[in-house]
């Protein structure tokens, strides 16, 4: 064995073992748990009308969310990348704003706006002079509305990126051959955007499948798999919870395999250069329509954020039947800083996110380095291990951890983490692995692999090569990945709700507790704190990267 392959294995061996332990082992525990009493748990699942309904509803919601997000995201991407009209810039600036809302925070905003006592609901009630609220905002529809609002962003971003890369001479060629707008769209543009659209649809489907916050808050009597798992766990029916988790995870993996297969079949390299040219909308009627749509869309997109900010200044306990909160105060924010009990969740969220992100950076950098720049026998396995947590719904990850790290038994590779502070950072870390590893792999793939050999050939040792060649190449992905995982950690709710204890409760869990206490102002203030943290991380990451790029340009210049 050469020095180099020995070095590769010294890194790859422990890494494979660590990821197998944290990612695969808990899932094996879950699957094994389904057979703890023979096939009883499976029989119970199959015989339970509630579970069958939950599975059906989950699929209906997921497919509905895909359709709704696609119906919004695709036209929006075309509108913003292909056309110029009054209001385009404003709409473009806020089009990705729903992404800045952590899942539960988005749900809270919708509750304040469209819930039975929400501002929009009451406005409509007043306007129409109705005795009761015009809707209750519970059931499948509100879940679909929230999914459409938060998840169209994936479709929009994927399709817009696809259109940026799109070789516009293909459309010109089709036009030159006599094809009108509809034929071009049907036969050329849309088929070529299939990989982008399919990728986005997959992401929406997986997110909907794993979605917890919206069904939890707005579901009413509606059962979905993710909430069903928590209910079974709380009822102590662990066997059933394991079966539900396995079924949900298998559904996700099946969707992943199916859509990846479809995506690969329809993936074509573009030979020409992508060129984006925005055609001004010339017809006066169409321009007006586009501008009005833009104004309404901007308002709708900003409304949840604006609502949260407004309620964050509302005095707790006085907003009852009025249209808007009657009294405003700075007290909610002051209490978050002053009151230790209210400050603890913020401190927890920050600590756990920082820990998880730091671990993600170290582990994923090593994994990405091995996957992209080293050839060794376990490479495919490592690739699979880092992507696997993406395919597994967060509830399933959490239940796997809960069933694996619930006792100290070193011989069985078990450590007691459940009930301690560490279980949540671990869950965040596992959820962050695919995000960070994928981003770093993307950056490293752009590096010429011979650079590392060149540095070694010039006499640089391992550390010098890492510091001056590999790390700078990985950096953009590292910063982007760290940003994504930190944002996920800040707002994490789904795994937290399964695994938290009172002492390590994060902000998201505390928001839910405050809502239950009807302390809307405090819940909204927490939500605003989370949004500010997300914005600060996003801006900070962008700043940091551009500062580093500027510094490098100055050195080179």
């Amino acid at each position, binding site marked *: 064995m050469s020095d180099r392959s020995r070095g590769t294995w010294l890194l790859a061996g422990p890494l494979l073992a660590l990821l197998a332990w944290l990612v695969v082992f808990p899932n094996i525990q879950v699957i094994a748990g389904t057979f703890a009493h023979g096939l009883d748990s499976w029989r119970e699942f199959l015989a339970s009308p509630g579970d069958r309904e939950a599975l059906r509803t989950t699929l209906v919601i997921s497919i509905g969310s895909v359709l709704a997000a696609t119906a919004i995201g695709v036209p929006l991407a075309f509108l913003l990348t292909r056309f110029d009209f009054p209001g385009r810039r404003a709409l473009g600036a806020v089009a990705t704003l729903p992404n800045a809302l952590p899942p539960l925070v988005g749900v809270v905003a919708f509750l304040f706006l469209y819930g039975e006592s929400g501002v929009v609901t009451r406005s409509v009630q007043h306007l129409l002079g109705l005795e009761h609220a015009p809707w209750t905002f519970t059931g499948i529809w509100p879940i679909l509305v929230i999914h459409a609002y938060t998840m169209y962003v994936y479709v929009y971003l994927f399709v817009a990126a696809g259109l940026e890369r799109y070789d516009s001479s293909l459309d010109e060629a089709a036009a*030159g*051959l006599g094809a009108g707008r509809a034929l071009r769209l049907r036969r050329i543009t849309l088929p070529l955007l299939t990989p982008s659209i399919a990728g986005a649809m997959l992401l929406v489907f997986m997110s909907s499948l794993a979605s917890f916050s919206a069904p939890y808050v707005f579901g009413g009597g509606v059962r979905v798999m993710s909430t069903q798992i928590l209910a079974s766990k709380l009822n102590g029916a662990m066997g059933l919870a394991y079966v539900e988790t396995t079924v949900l995870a298998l559904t996700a993996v099946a969707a992943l395999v199916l859509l990846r297969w479809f995506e690969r079949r329809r993936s074509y390299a573009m*030979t020409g250069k992508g060129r984006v040219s925005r055609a001004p909308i010339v017809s006066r009627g169409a321009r007006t329509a586009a501008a009005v749509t833009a104004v309404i869309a901007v308002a709708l997109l900003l409304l949840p954020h604006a609502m949260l900010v407004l309620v964050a200044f509302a005095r707790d306990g006085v907003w009852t039947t009025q249209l808007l909160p009657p009294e405003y105060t700075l007290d909610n924010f002051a209490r978050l800083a002053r009151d230790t009990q209210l400050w603890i969740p913020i401190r927890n969220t920050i600590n756990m996110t920082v820990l998880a992100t730091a671990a993600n950076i170290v582990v994923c950098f090593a994994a990405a380095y091995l996957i992209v720049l080293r050839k060794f026998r376990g490479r495919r396995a490592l690739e699979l291990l880092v992507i696997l947590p993406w395919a597994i719904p967060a509830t399933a990850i959490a239940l796997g951890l809960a069933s694996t790290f619930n006792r100290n038994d070193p011989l069985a590779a078990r450590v007691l983490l459940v009930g301690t502070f560490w279980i949540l950072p671990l869950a965040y870390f596992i959820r962050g692995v695919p995000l960070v590893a994928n981003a770093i792999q993307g950056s490293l793939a752009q590096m010429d692999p011979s650079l590392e050999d060149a540095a070694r050939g010039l006499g640089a040792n391992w550390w010098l090569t890492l510091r001056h060649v590999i790390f700078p190449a990985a950096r953009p992905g590292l910063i982007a990945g760290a940003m994504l995982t930190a944002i996920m950690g800040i707002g994490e709710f789904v795994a937290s709700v399964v695994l938290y204890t009172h002492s390590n409760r994060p902000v998201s869990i505390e928001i839910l507790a405050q809502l239950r206490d009807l302390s809307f102002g405090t819940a909204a203030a927490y939500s605003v704190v989370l949004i500010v943290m997300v914005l600060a991380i996003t801006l900070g990451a962008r700043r940091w990267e551009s500062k580093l790029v500027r510094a490098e340009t100055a050195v080179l210049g």
Partner: protein
Amino acid sequence: MRTPSSLTLDALTRRFSDRNVVDAVSLTVPAGQLLALVGASGSGKTTTLRMVAGYETPDSGRVLIDDTDITGTPPQSRDFGMVFQHYALFPHLRVGENVAFGLEARGVNKPDRERRALDALTTVGLANAAQRTVQSLSGGEQQRVALARALVIEPRVLLLDEPLSNLDPTLRRDMRDELRATLHRLGVTALFVTHDQEDAFAVADRVALLANGKLLQAGTPEELYDAPASRAVASFIGHAALVPASNDGARVSIAIGNTTHAFAAHGTARGNVLAVLRPDALALARDGAPRTWKGTVTSRRFAGGHVAYHVRLDDRTTVEVVSTDRGAAEGSTVSVTIAREPVAVVAP
């Protein structure tokens, strides 16, 4: 094939941020002829082509087909065929479907469009390629499929945007001949944009030279080469030493060092002019031959069938001479004469 149409560009102008990228270009391509629009990158040739195709809207000027103004007609209604620089073959359609796409857009039924696509592929020598994927084609095959796709709709005018620029040198030479032969056989009116004058000379009946958005000269390849209308044309087309001279209208006197010789002149410039001395119009002469200049060989480059010599005739004048005579060594003294008259003159 339908009866070919003529194409006219009438004072076509396009401005980008207050700069005229195409500046009042007027040109006619007679029916069935091939005109090459040549220019360096940024000269406005592709913008001109895109205005003719309808992808760009001119700020002023007109595009006429026969005598019909089609300036405002959208691309899909112009009945033009276009071959793009990177061919723009639809990557998700098979070769046959690519070629048949224009017929599909015209509502031709499936059996007819399959038959006509096969005919078009046969025309370009790819009769068996209909079922192949675009990705399996070589560069030359892609170019021919793009040509077949543009020709199958029997276009009134065929537009070609640098169709040879993506091919390797050997293939490029073959494709030039093939392209010219195919287009002539079909009698298509074609406008062909290229930055490569060799492509233009090899393929086109007439060549128009564009620089900074302006049309400098249009004519047959021989006219542009032998009788450039200006210093800019003489510099861009072929290699040439531009040597100060004087022209009395019939003869041009060229003074190099202390020796002046007179030759028959071609060109409208009078008085102080520049004589355009092409490498192939010069020759190495034996000692004692009339009307020669002595010079020193500063470098020689063997190019297979001939040798290109750089000969310094005096402190200011170095000319390139191509000769089948391989005997002159670097540093040797040779005699140079002008072997082909008349000598083109341009205003300095």
